[in-house]
């Protein structure tokens, strides 16, 4: 780990700690009707939005959503990639061909379009909490293809390696061979893919939020907070609306730095 990566890990942990220990309860959605769109003050360090909600509390909640759910979605897509890609590489034949074709399809479709299509199918009365979970669940379910192809290629190589042949010769076969021999050897690739996916999901949620298709109000997310930036007049009057941008760039930048260059490039 380089010095820069250590610094990035430190900043990431600090952000995580602040967001997890910060504003709790309904402070992010509580409206202060006597303080609508006020400038930063001792009571509201980042001021309040047009609905009188504390911007700092909302920023903390939005960061918490990204910090907790993006890794969860990345874990889901990594597990799917391990299962689908691993089995395809290990079994080969028709299963392998089907998996490659489906992965090709997922890779040919821009993510955002897929997300838009599936989000459009969701019922209109989806609760805010359900919308958060569904957004990240969709991200996790749709993001398996790229890591899946890499895992499949690694599993194919491993399946033909000497130690697997030796294990086969010793009578180890089936699931035991897969879990005991292949999966541990795929672990470094899976770990790299997990870390690569986390910033991608943070940014995807931000994009969806900017388009108004992410987390529903009154829950806050980094994406939904960015929507305030669309109001150009408010920007010049109140530059603190840029705070979510700063947090997002720092968060995504730290996560990008944490994935070592070699790991990212080898994938």
């Amino acid at each position, binding site marked *: 780990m380089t010095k820069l990566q250590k610094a990035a890990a430190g900043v990431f942990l600090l952000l995580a700690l602040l967001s997890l220990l910060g504003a709790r309860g309904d402070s992010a959605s509580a409206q202060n009707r006597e303080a609508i769109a006020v400038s930063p003050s001792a009571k509201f360090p980042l001021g309040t939005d047009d609905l009188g909600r504390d911007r700092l509390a909302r920023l903390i909640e939005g960061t918490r959503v990204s910090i907790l759910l993006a890794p969860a979605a990345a874990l889901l897509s990594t597990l799917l990639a391990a299962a689908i890609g691993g089995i395809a590489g290990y079994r080969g034949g028709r299963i392998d061909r089907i998996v490659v*074709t*489906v992965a*090709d*399809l997922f*890779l*040919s*479709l*821009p*993510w*955002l*379009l*897929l997300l*838009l*299509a*599936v*989000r*459009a*199918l969701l*019922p209109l009365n989806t609760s805010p909490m359900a919308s958060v979970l569904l957004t990240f669940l969709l991200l996790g379910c749709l993001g398996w293809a790229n890591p899946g192809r890499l895992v499949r290629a690694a599993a194919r190589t491993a399946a033909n390696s000497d130690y697997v042949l030796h294990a086969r010769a010793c009578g180890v076969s089936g699931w035991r061979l897969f879990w005991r021999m292949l999966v541990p050897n795929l672990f470094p690739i899976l770990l790299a893919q997990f870390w690569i996916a986390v*910033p991608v999901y943070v*940014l*995807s949620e*931000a*994009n969806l939020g*900017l*388009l*108004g*298709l992410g987390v529903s109000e009154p829950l806050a997310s980094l*994406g939904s907070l*960015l929507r305030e*930036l*669309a109001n*150009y007049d408010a920007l010049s009057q109140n530059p603190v609306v840029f705070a979510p*941008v700063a947090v*997002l*760039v720092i968060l*995504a*930048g730290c996560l*990008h*730095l944490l994935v070592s260059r070699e790991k*990212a*490039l080898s994938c």
Partner: protein
Amino acid sequence: MQVLLQQVRRALLTILLGGFLGATLLRFSPGWGLDERELDPHLSSESRQAARAEYESERNVLIYYAHYLKAALSLDLGISRSFNRPVTGLLRERLPETTRSLAFGVTVGLLAGLVLAIANAYAGWRLLDLAASALAGLSLSIPAGLIALGCFWLRAPVSWAIALAVFPHIYRYAGNILGKAYGTGHVFAARAGGQSEPRILAAHVLWPATPELFALAAVAVSVAFGAAVPIEVICDAPGIGQMAWKAALARDLPLLTGVTLLITVMTVTATSVADLALSFARTSERRRGRP
């Protein structure tokens, strides 16, 4: 020829599967099978029954897909619910705008990424590497929507936002390809043989890496399409991306499926062309006896 057929088969299979995915989404979308004629009091019960029967035959998703595919082959992708117009006409109307901005954005992003990666690999200047990596890292850490907002405030065209979204991916991939090419044995041998650095770059690094670098175009197209949605929405550009967003907000699945299918066809074509170029280049390399 075999490679070409294989690529065409793969591309067709992917497109068919994409169509099936779209048709399945449509078939199970809320409101499918409900016809407003059923609420018309002027119609007799037989007419309403006939309207219902039109959907009955398509309840099976495979039959529905067969009908959808047959119609799609004659360029009939259905009627958009939100625009109340044929999807094909809407796509035809919006496609030129997206194609123009994508062509410019992909070209500029690709060239900027390649030029910086080549300059960095060749000269090895620390400052250049630092500046380019910082720019690429920053662009990668900003969602495409925010890049679009920046361009909107600066009154820059949509195509520049797309170029900025494409650039970091190309810079990183190209840097990786060139780094690997510089580490190969024949480069060391050429250097030991006293060849000049420009010649090594041209003959031993760039030339063998050309197919891989060419394949980056497919990556650029895919990234650009993904970025086009938020960029067109925020910059209010009347392209395919903005229409997909409007369709998603209005839950207009026929339109959304049409857009998805069109983009699948375009991305698959770009990927197949890049893959074909890659395999032809590798075959000719093998014929010339290079490893």
